[in-house]
């Protein structure tokens, strides 16, 4: 996919978010910086526990108020810092400007409300449409996301739709007010593989047609390759590498990224290839390590990795990574042979 060079529609700068829990303070996001350009799809890739969902929800301020602490950072959208806006102003942003699609279509819709009404709710709230106008638009939206017999479907309840169809409805709701940014949090994880492809295809079409910018959150690099322009790799609450899709897939610079790419099942004629998962588990968010978060599981870890957090090294206009291996004093490490050309 061609890279998109444009101005940044959304910029997240050194975001730090923690939660208060019975076990102590959970530092979910510890300094994430990335930006989203107009008309592009940015994929934020990471394991569960890396903080990617929290970061995404923070953009829309959807984290539970009672135990969320914003420890620092800015989220700049349309010239304002979203973290500092009043709740009232956020209501105008959620929906018309930034919209979100969640992971599990089975639980994303109110089971006791007809589907059409759930779409129209948004239209009435933000666009002050009349009942009939809103109904028309709702039908348009359902058609847009590829749901047949849209007029009848409007009147049905969520349980009458299959998983893939429900996710389309959720997307329709998100698109209702023509947002500039769509945040898709693992939109295909709960669906099976054939439906996954359909939904991703749908997102791509919609982006081309409507010119939306999309943040796609996923733990599955395979999903990313066909839909994203740029990738940000997240681990332990930090963004550790960003770059275009080509750069990340063909020239990754970080052991964690190497590990992610190696763990993608690649169909080859030689069936003997094993799945190589990265051994170990993510760091404890209540007691995060003071150095690079990947140290415990990194096969190339050095003493300095345990002590200090590495800074970013810029490899190209888009490509940055944070790893001590790039320091001039570090030994020269070549990425494992299998990585280059993983796609």
């Amino acid at each position: 996919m061609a890279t998109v060079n444009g101005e940044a529609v959304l910029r997240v700068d050194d975001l730090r978010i923690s939660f208060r829990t019975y076990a102590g303070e959970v530092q979910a996001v510890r300094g994430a910086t990335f930006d989203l350009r107009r008309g592009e799809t940015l994929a934020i890739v990471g394991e569960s526990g890396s903080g990617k969902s929290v970061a995404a929800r923070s953009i829309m301020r959807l984290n539970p108020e009672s135990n969320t602490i914003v420890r620092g950072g800015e989220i700049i959208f349309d010239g304002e810092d979203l973290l500092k806006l009043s709740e009232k102003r956020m209501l105008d942003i959620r929906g018309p400007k930034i919209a979100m699609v969640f992971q599990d279509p089975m639980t994303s819709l109110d089971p006791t409300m007809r589907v059409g009404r759930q779409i129209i709710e948004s239209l009435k709230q933000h666009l002050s449409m009349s009942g009939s106008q809103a109904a028309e638009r709702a039908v348009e939206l359902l058609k847009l996301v590829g749901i047949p017999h849209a007029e009848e479907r409007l009147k049905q309840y969520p349980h009458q739709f299959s998983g893939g169809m429900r996710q389309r409805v959720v997307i329709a709701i998100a698109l209702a007010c023509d947002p500039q940014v769509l945040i898709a949090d693992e939109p295909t994880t709960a669906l099976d593989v054939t439906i996954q492809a359909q939904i991703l295809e749908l997102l791509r079409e919609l982006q081309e047609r409507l010119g939306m910018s999309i943040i796609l959150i996923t733990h599955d690099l395979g999903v990313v390759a066909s839909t994203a322009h740029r990738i940000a790799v997240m681990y332990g609450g930090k963004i550790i590498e960003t770059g275009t899709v080509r750069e990340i897939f063909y020239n990754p610079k970080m052991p964690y990224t190497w590990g992610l790419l190696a763990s993608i099942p690649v169909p080859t004629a030689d069936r003997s290839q094993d799945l190589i998962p990265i051994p170990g588990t993510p760091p404890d968010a209540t007691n995060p390590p003071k150095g690079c978060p990947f140290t415990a599981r990194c096969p190339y870890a050095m003493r300095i990795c345990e002590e200090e957090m590495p800074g970013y090294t810029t490899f190209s206009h888009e490509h940055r990574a944070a790893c001590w291996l790039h320091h001039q004093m570090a030994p020269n490490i070549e990425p494992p042979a299998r990585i280059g050309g993983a796609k």
Partner: protein
Amino acid sequence: METSNRQITFTPDLFEPVQRSAADAEKITGSPVGFWGDAWRRLKRNRIAIAAGCVIILVLTLAVVGPWLTPYTAVGQMLDRQYESPSLSGYWFGTDEFGRSMFDRVWAGTRVSLYIAALVTAMDLCVGMSYGTISGYYGGRVDNVMQRIVEILNGIPILIVAVLTLLIMKPGILSLTIAIGLVGWTTSARLIRGQVLRLKEQEFFLASRSLGASTFRLMSKHLIPNVFYIVIITLMYTVPTAVFFEAFLSFIGLGIQPPAASLGALISEGAHQMRFHPYMLTFPAAVLVMITISFRLLGDGLRDALDPRMRQ
């Protein structure tokens, strides 16, 4: 490489690889806590539940030890000391119309009430759990029929059954136990059946089966840990319910009769004397309420602590 503003002096030794065995990578960072450890920790945080637990222990202790604390007994009448108000120097809880020490009667009554509750709970668990296990394990038609029976039993209110039972059997500890426990076991039966069904679908069950383990051993070995949870929760819920029902039945005249004491009988007597001797109601009522509240709070706390879904 951009670095933070902190001054770091880079020395070559910092860039040496960390010596590590393959096993280290698998180590879970952060203190590893098992299921029970985590549950206990969560329970400890819940101060209300801990307080409730202490109250229960206190009540149980007094129920057993109470009579020894005073020179009086629960049935000994001292007709010249009727209706004495509670005082620290005399009778701590006062006396009733026959001059009996309320303190002793209250704790004797508590013993009886708790004893009945324990019997009911035991019956509940035995019947319920066997019923549920059999129903779940055998499945098919047996299960269908048994579940149908349970559905019907559920529709029969405890009050009705209790009243009917007590009308034909003379009120006493055994009859009360049967009256209260006759229909209450359906909840634990259902819980156990759910567990058994879930277990049946799990792979290790099939694996054990194919290895030829006997039916009974299978069921007991794999069921035990989950059973513990169910038993605890059922206990915490059934005891206050049973105590309540016993008290209720005694209050309307179907339960324990004087001179035997139970919390319900004492409260009933006390209610009649409310106008002139309120202390006769206050003390047994206070004990009853404390038991009920404590079991409920502790039960809630235990349920929260042991609930596998609550683990972050």
